[in-house]
């Protein structure tokens, strides 16, 4: 079972895929992704709650890789929601 968070297939906030499968170039990327999904599920949130942060991170660093922006967004998201400081 995949859980309730619907990960997009397309769009700037969609994670890189190959033939539908997510592509992680290093273990930390999979870890960050898993952390995000587990966090969203636990907090009863959806991808759309995270998307704003991801979009902002990508805009700030358009040259950076997806998962680098993803990690930035996860930090910002956690701080904004008072989960981390």
């Amino acid at each position: 079972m995949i859980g309730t968070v619907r990960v997009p297939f397309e769009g700037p906030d969609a994670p890189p895929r190959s033939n539908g499968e997510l592509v992680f170039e290093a273990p930390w990327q999979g870890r960050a992704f898993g952390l995000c999904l587990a966090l969203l599920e636990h907090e009863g949130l959806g991808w759309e709650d995270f998307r704003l942060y991801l979009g902002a991170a990508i805009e700030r660093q358009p040259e950076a890789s997806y998962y680098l922006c993803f990690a930035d967004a996860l930090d910002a998201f956690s701080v904004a929601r008072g989960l981390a400081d």
Partner: protein
Amino acid sequence: MSDEHGHHHPAEASPIERRVQALEDLLVERGYVRREDIDTFVQIYEHDIGPMNGARVVARAWVDADYKARLLADGTAAIGELGFGGPEGGFMVVLENTDEVHNAVVCTLCSCYPWPVLGLPPDWYKSAPYRSRMVRAPRGVLREMGCDVPDEVEVRVWDSSAEARYLVLPQRPAGTDDLSEDELAALVTRDAMIGVARL
């Protein structure tokens, strides 16, 4: 490098690895996530969620009887209708699982694999034990892989080659009548299309 539970050795980890690990540790410690839930999601997205090309072919066959007939008659052409094909995608033969027959695929000589629909072959598919044992004792191998085929169902093992690359069309699970084609595709796993799992 991280082990199964994400515990990095600080001396070897890069800054980004340390950042992600630190955030994970903090959120786990504060009770906002459980380590095992993170592990589960990583597992699901790294291994279980299957190749969508193959899944789309299967879902289309489930909802469209004419398409299914074409798929069984000429796999390459029907798969090509959905836009999938290319290197290693020729000579596709689709095997339909039924109440009487469970199909499984191996490549005993090398590791022929339908890349355009199934992506990269898993390591176990390429392993010598799988390749040699599947033809000799398929039920045992399947059981070890968590696939229990009822005794009354025949198991047929197909050996892929350059002339015939096999894709299993799993049976549509019960209780899925009101799912959309996209939702059906999301149910189809790589293992089911190789024939080492039942949906």
